[in-house]
């Protein structure tokens, strides 16, 4: 059985045109579809897949995109460590790369993923969140993101299907910037977003991002083509002396500087790392990802009740918007941080970002796949304002 994949003729456009100017049409699609549709338009050279629920749907659809000619190369790897390692290998040849995973899959691939930044791999990683075993479960819970936060990668957290589409496209552009050139992860909640439909305004799939430019890379591809020649006669990092410690230390600093430098592109392409509603409020609900949708609803309800409540949606987890959050909440009396995980990694980040961490209310938190009722957030809002709330679930 032989199948000739069609050679598609696309119009190449830059990321600003794609995100801000290109005409869009509204579609009613799942989060998985939104991510795959973004990959279709990203001019991806190679995608490598390994199944895990709830991610699988994304890479099924990317496989279809490959079959239809939108992606140039695709294969199903042996498991996540093999997948993430192959991404690292392929990136040395100077190509645009995409893969996606979930929960235990992310942790299995983590040894390779955490070295992507140091290897200067500008790949895009979809994280469709899922609980980490045990006990076994496939349900949404974003605790895995806590493990990703310290590897240097840029991390975006999508609230809904539209965010998933826009952030995935922006991720490719951010990752490949000469002053960034580290991986970008786009996370969103498994099932709640991946398997639920929402309205997504999408550009035409006849448009594609301009091709990956291996020559423009700050760290040349190991393709024996791109100067300067990478003829390595000595690897000082392998030695046990001060120079080797220094090289490693400087390299780590550079990765985190790259991460910081990504912030200006988060502003340029996504309108900034946070969205703020009612900046004069006494109490803010601070949330990211799917929890931000519930926080938005709690904010709306509070405003209807005439309560002084604002909303901060956090789009970028790395680089973390320390200055932006600090400036927004400088007069706030309480910050409510609803999350889809037990440890409250966002609450910890927010606490560390502000001088008066005592105003942070860590919670409400749901985990193990539970939904996040708006009433739980409303109860915390009322408590923070010194009001009674009759919680009925």
């Amino acid at each position, binding site marked *: 059985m032989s199948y000739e994949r069609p050679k598609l003729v696309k119009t190449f456009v830059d990321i600003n045109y794609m995100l801000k100017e290109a005409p869009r049409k509204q579609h009613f699609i799942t989060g998985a579809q939104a991510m795959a549709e973004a990959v279709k338009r990203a001019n991806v050279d190679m995608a490598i897949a390994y199944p895990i629920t709830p991610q699988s749907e994304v890479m099924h659809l990317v496989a279809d995109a490959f079959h239809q000619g939108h992606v140039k190369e695709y294969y199903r790897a042996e498991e996540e460590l*093999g997948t993430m390692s192959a991404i690292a290998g392929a990136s040395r040849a100077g190509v645009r790369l995409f893969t996606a995973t979930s929960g235990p899959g992310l942790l299995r691939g983590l040894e390779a993923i955490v070295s992507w930044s140091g290897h200067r791999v500008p790949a895009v990683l979809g994280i469709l969140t899922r609980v980490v075993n045990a006990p076994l479960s496939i349900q949404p819970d974003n605790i895995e993101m806590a493990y990703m936060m310290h590897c240097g990668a840029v991390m975006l957290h999508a609230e809904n299907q539209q965010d998933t589409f826009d952030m995935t496209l922006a991720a490719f552009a951010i990752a490949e910037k000469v002053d960034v050139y580290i991986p970008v992860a786009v996370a969103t909640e498994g099932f709640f977003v991946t398997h639920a439909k929402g309205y997504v305004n999408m550009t035409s799939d006849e448009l594609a991002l301009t091709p990956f430019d291996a020559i423009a890379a700050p760290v040349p591809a190991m393709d024996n083509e791109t100067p300067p020649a990478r003829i*390595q*006669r000595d690897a000082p990092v392998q030695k046990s002396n001060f120079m080797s410690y220094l090289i490693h230390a400087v390299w780590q600093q550079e990765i985190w500087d790259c991460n910081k430098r990504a912030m200006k592109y988060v502003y340029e392409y996504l309108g900034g790392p946070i969205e703020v509603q009612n900046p004069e409020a006494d109490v803010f609900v601070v949330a990211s990802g799917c929890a931000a949708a519930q926080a938005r609803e709690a904010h709306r309800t509070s405003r209807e009740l005439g309560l002084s409540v604002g909303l901060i949606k956090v789009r970028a987890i790395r680089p973390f918007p320390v200055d932006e959050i600090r400036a927004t909440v400088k007069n706030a009396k309480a910050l409510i941080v609803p999350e889809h995980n037990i440890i409250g990694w966002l609450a910890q980040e927010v606490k560390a970002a502000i001088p008066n961490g005592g105003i942070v209310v860590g919670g409400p938190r749901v985990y193990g796949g539970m939904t996040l009722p708006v009433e739980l957030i409303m109860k915390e809002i009322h408590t923070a304002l010194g009001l009674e709330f009759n919680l009925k679930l």
Partner: protein
Amino acid sequence: MSLKYVTPVAMFKKYLPKDYVELVDFGPFGKTQDEAGPGNMGQFKELMEEHPMCSGCWMAYYIRLIFASLPCPEETVTLGTAGCGRLAISQAAVPFIYGNYGDQNAMASGLSRAFRLRFPDKQKDVITIAGDGGTMDIGFSMTMHSWIRGERFTTIMLDNEVYGNTGGQESGMSPKGAVLKMAPGGKQFNKMPATDLAKAAGCVYIVRMSPTNIKKAAKIIRRAIFVAREVGPTFIHAYTSCNIEYSIPTEEVFADAKLREKDRFQFEEYMTDAAKEVIDRIEAEEKAAHRAKKGIVEEEVN
């Protein structure tokens, strides 16, 4: 392009490290095996010269031989993992990619596919060179699956039958009964049948050897690379003793390699018909070129 890429502009030469300039002027880039191959090692600037390996290390010798045998060093990328081997491989003048533990064949899968995507009309040689632990233990799944998928690159296993770099622990390739660290009572199970596994997984050219004969070892390295270019995965399982952990006196390292040739590393060469076709064709071409050149030299002498 790649030969051009290693060659500096003449006026820059004086600013470049002497070592690099000498490599370009007197190294094997763009040269034939007659000019700069294993047959005249020591007479040209080699790709791997200095290395931090132990005195008498048979692995260092074999790695040096691999680099001297490369059909096209200016188009070659090597990949490896933790272990003694990478200490030397990373000091060769060929791009070397070091990833994580045992992931060399997964990385090479991505790399070789991406090379074919970007340079459909060029041949880039991708070679993974890793130890027995990296290839058959921690990297086992990634090694096997790269073969099962038919990935077109060469895998070379430097088998010293022990985890040498971490201090001498038992590996899956250690022989049964070997008393090593983590095996105080001797290894309880057999050496893994690497070449059988390679065959079952679909490697199209497989050799097990103790590389005591330079010419033969070089020929096999080149065969494995030529076949990987056109047909499918190739695998060399080479004995590269650890004279430290197995307490082999330096002056007996070669004798030990000869001895192993008679038991665990008896020469075995397997090739599919398609692989044989490639080997026959390329070796006939090489022979013809060699004869033609010899003819010219004889004419000139006459």
